[in-house]
């Protein structure tokens, strides 16, 4: 394993890009999940319709197709909108996983008992306070575990951005493989790095899950 010290720095450089894309992608996905849910629960039919179309289109087509669409189609006429690969990656991942996230958020909001809404109205809370103080904290308990899974999906999804010329971990692995022919070592190391990153995501999210369910009786498994 003497070649590790040659391979690791380049792979770590790729890991940094992967991490950046994953973090910004997750932030955009959370934002889009919020916007999607607001649209889909809005009082106006047009907005509900827009929200539904957004979710169905981005959930119904493949992430890679969406990335390619943003990358190859947008720069050409009639759009003439050339985005950098980095922007395409974040926008593509954010929109795709935001659509999935909106489903999770909607389910979690629904799981809050109706009595909670009514009690908040009876206490004369404004809609914003009701959401912030009563509904969201309870919805988060149900939303975070599936959100953790989705974040791991997003992390894995970042490997696809190597196909739109972004030099992330997967791209570096391919590049190193072509240069050094240490195929087995490189891909084993790459798999390991992704696995460790996923475990880090899980550990961070467990922390948040504990925080939001603080002081609430847990239904124990088994």
């Amino acid at each position: 394993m003497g070649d590790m010290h040659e391979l690791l720095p380049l792979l770590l450089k790729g890991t940094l890009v992967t991490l950046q894309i994953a973090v910004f992608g997750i932030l955009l996905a959370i934002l889009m999940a919020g916007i999607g849910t607001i649209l889909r629960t809005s009082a106006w039919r047009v907005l509900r319709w827009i929200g539904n179309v957004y979710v169905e289109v981005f959930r119904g087509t493949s992430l890679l197709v969406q990335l390619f669409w943003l990358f190859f189609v947008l720069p050409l006429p009639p759009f003439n909108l050339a985005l950098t690969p980095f922007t395409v990656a974040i926008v593509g991942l954010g929109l795709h996983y935001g659509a999935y996230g909106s489903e999770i958020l909607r389910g979690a909001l629904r799981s809050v008992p109706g009595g909670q809404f009514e009690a908040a109205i009876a206490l004369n809370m404004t809609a914003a306070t009701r959401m912030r103080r009563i509904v969201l904290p309870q919805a988060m308990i149900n939303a975070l575990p599936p959100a953790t899974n989705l974040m791991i999906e997003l992390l894995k999804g970042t490997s696809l951005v190597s196909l739109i010329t972004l030099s992330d971990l997967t791209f570096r692995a391919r590049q190193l493989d072509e240069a050094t022919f240490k195929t087995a070592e490189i891909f084993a190391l790459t798999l390991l790095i992704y696995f460790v990153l996923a475990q880090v995501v899980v550990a961070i999210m467990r922390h948040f899950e504990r925080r939001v369910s603080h002081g609430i009786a847990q239904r124990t498994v088994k």
Partner: protein
Amino acid sequence: MNSFFDVKYALHILPELLRASMYTIGITLVGFVIALVLGLVLAVLRRSSIASVSRVTGFFIEFIRSTPLLIQVYVLFYVAPLYGITMSALLAGTIGIAVHYACYVSEVYRAGLNGVARGQWEAACALSLSPWRTYSGVILPQAIRPVIPALGNYLVAMFKDTPVLSAITVVELMQQAKNIGSETFRYLEPITMTGLFFLLISVTFASGVRHLERRVRLP
């Protein structure tokens, strides 16, 4: 060339895309059948009473589930030949996607198996059924029925992941669209149509699964 979406050109490339989408559907169906069988094996192995077997299976599932499909396919296509296993891109791709989804599917089976009442296991034991008869005759019919919707979701998810295989030169729908695009320098029509195809076929798969769900529902 100035029109927003050239319908004539779109119709011209339609047959090629249709052929490629048949290929994609084929990969999905073959891969999903393998995933269903392998997933069941993994789920049963994970319940094994031998601690080392269940732990190794558990780690394997966890590892495959938390690493990207793209890299796994690369490993099958570029690393396996070093150990004397040479596969065509299509075979490597199908096996890769099948194993990846087998791990997801095995988690679904696990949920289904956990949902079967304890008494059923005990009854099978009391009737001294063999492990094979216990699973095939008693447990699985009850375990699989309620998880069919979840399995169907993974069929659709797997279908949507087939474009990943284009990275190892499998010419499926996405790769075909890209090839057409690079020949004619018009990407709008082929890639947009690919997106529409995916949407249509996903919806078809989803409604097929719903239909199956109704058919096997207990009265």
